């Protein structure tokens, strides 16, 4: 029996990084959300492959602004990553700055995306493509907004001095969600903006 009882090693208590329940819960949430976007894109390709309409209605998408916007979102992810790095090295002020930058870039993405929407000559109800385009990008926009609220809460909690190099699981977990939102954008972008060039 003795060999069963583990040795007297010290164990972390509470919400400790990737051993915390929250990290695991977030991974599972991301899997199910990832599948949600998978089914959305399945819907897009299923309908696109059978359509006889102009696809997209305005012809091949212009890529300049969406390209820039994609880079902005990726940069935002980079700042979240840097924020976590800084806090691991006890550079609390740098981590605050970095998280603030991430929020600003995230807001920029939303503003530019809203302009993209306003430039369309059709809406959700005009045609099938419009239904798909606005539903898919709308779903993503919703996730960006939720992600931004999370980043802003993290910024607030950082400013309140809740975290240091020993305890910052919330940053790791919230950051993971933001990275997920960015990766999903790459898939949405590839499907809606790049794939029409293939046929």
């Amino acid at each position, binding site marked *: *029996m003795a*060999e*069963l*009882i*583990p040795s*007297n*090693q*010290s*164990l*972390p*208590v*509470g*919400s*400790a990084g990737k*051993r*915390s*329940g*929250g990290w*695991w*819960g977030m991974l*599972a*949430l991301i*899997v*199910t*959300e990832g*599948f*949600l976007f*998978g*089914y*959305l894109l*399945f*819907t897009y390709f*299923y*309908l696109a492959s*059978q*359509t*006889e*309409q102009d696809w997209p209605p305005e012809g091949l998408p212009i890529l300049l602004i969406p390209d820039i916007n994609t880079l902005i979102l990726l940069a935002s992810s980079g700042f979240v990553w840097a924020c976590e790095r800084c806090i691991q090295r006890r550079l609390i002020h740098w981590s605050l700055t970095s998280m603030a930058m991430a929020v600003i870039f995230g807001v920029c993405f939303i503003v530019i995306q809203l302009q993209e929407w306003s430039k369309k000559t059709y809406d*959700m*109800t005009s*045609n*099938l493509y419009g*239904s*798909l385009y606005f*539903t898919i990008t709308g779903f993503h926009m919703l996730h960006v907004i939720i992600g931004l*609220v999370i980043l802003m*809460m993290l910024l607030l*909690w950082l400013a*309140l*001095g*809740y*975290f*240091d190099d*020993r*305890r910052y*699981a*919330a940053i790791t977990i919230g950051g993971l969600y933001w990275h997920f939102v960015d990766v999903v954008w790459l898939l949405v972008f590839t499907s809606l903006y790049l794939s029409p060039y293939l046929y």
Partner: protein
Amino acid sequence: MTDAVDSSSNPSLCRVPEVGYAPIGSAAERRLAELWESAPGWRGWLSTVDHKTIGLRYLVTAFIFLLMGGVEALIMRLQLARPEQTLLTPEQYSQLFTMHGVTMIFLYSLPVLSGFSNYLWPLMLGSRDMAFPRLNALSYWIFLFAGIFLYVSFPLGEAPNAGWFNYVPFAGLEYNTGPNIDVYALGMVLLGISTTVGAINFIVTLFRLRAPGMSIDKVPILVWGTLTASFANVFAIPAVSLAFFLLWLDRQTGTHFFDVVNGGKPLLWQHLFWMFGHPWVYAVVLPAMSIVSDALPTFCRRPLVGYSAVALSTMTTILLGFGVWMHHMFATGLPMFALSFFGATSTVISIPSAVAVFAWLATIWLGRPVFNTPFLFFAGFVLLFVIGGFSGVMTAAVPLDFQLNETYFIVAHLHYVLIGINVFPVIGGIYYWFPKFFGRMMNEALGKWSFWVMFIGFNLGFFPMHLAGLLGMPRRIYTYAPHMGWATVNMVTSVGSFIFAVGILIFLVNVFISLKRGALATENPWDAPTLEWATPSPPPAYNFAVIPFVASRHPLWEDRLNDGPSRSSLDQGYLLMEGRETIGTTPFKATPNIILKMPEDSYAPFFLGLFSALIFAGLLLHWRDFTLLMALACSLSLIGWMWPSQSLVQRLPVSKHDTGAAHG
């Protein structure tokens, strides 16, 4: 809470967990009880996060839905007992069969299994609660509200009426203008949230909250079954939530996903629905099959034959289960390749099921069966499973499916599967775990009566449906002409279904009598092998006074089985009583690697659940401002819930930041 007392050396961030004894009545045990018990009265009732309370709530609520769905079925059987009856109008009949399907499939069959798993998992795994106790409460509340949501329109005569799989264009605005389908669509999205968070909770609990030493090859089969079902839910629920959401958009905002005139495709609905629907079918039977795999050996007085084979077959079933959805669509004009592929996978999926069947048969064969009530239910289940499985393989053959599609043969098949593989193990499981739940045994004589009446009634009621189908009777017709030759089989079916209902009634009577007057149960009345039977009946709020160390698959049979030199340690283990705590272990080998802080009771799950349900009510009633207000309330509840707390050591428990905390 109690930490942050001496923050200088920071034992609140890192400490060696104390190993010791805490027999009933000791100071340590009393402290644990104080820490884990919910407040008395309505406060505790609304705020409790105890997995045992939540599990029982799931069981009771799901059972009430079973009874409601059952009454709906009986009314339909009255209508169909003889040709050209006029008890129901066609529209009433449509709403009844739709609500019957919705109730049984979504509000009974999975939630009842969640009830078992919620109650039993932490006890089987040697933990003090689930990984996310508050999420667990949320999952229950949303399930309850979604159930109520789906039912509120029923008394108004506006219930969902397009069948449980709700095919477009019939479910579209053009043919179905009332609120019926909107209720269904929104209710299903709401219910999907409950199922998803519940599934995530199970997955994380399995990977993180097992007792030290309980490596992945030592967990009970019920854990495998619910884990597999939970993975299926996490992958599949988004498909149906999306399908219903797109349908709702089509109906309410005028999008074109399923709108044929504007390039939408009705078949898209069928794909999305069955991509979810078929894995779901396995999700509602695999945990029930696992109940049998765990409980049957107790009554055969030997371990399950082929533990690894059964665990692997469970996972194989769900993997294949994601590749069979088109067998629901054979008659829609799919290309030959799709027909062949999905016909083949649907045939192949019977192999892992057969592995399980042979494992149960071998367990009975090699054991010394004790023929009491739970055993009867489990053995009866094996027979019904074989019949239901066999008619399933028949319809996997494409040419035969063309013939049988949309007939009563399918109705017979799905009832053999769902009642045979879900209801029989569930009732057997209640007989088996009743002493653990309530500390009393169920009456054995009434138990045997309930089994035989149910078993005879079920086969009398549902076997003739195969014949009705072969005679060409379509499903979902509200009546039929006398000269069709279906009168006799329908009468037999109706009689059988009422006998079956009497069997359920005997079971319920038994439950109520046994709750009051059943013989008091000991810790382990069946002499069972698994960890939940090491706790008192009913278990205390903290489950295990000390977190046990587990050495084998059968901690309570180790001396008898004599497998291996090491023995589990049940009396001596981690004390963990500085607040609500339990041990976190590594995913596969179950080596302790963290002391997890568990949350106190909380009202947040109830209110978040309520606000979410009200969002959907607002959407249904087109109350825009109300919906936005409720969305805001949800966001605030979530932020409050997620606010890093010192007692859970989600943030620094150091006193110098007290001013900051006061601000928060």
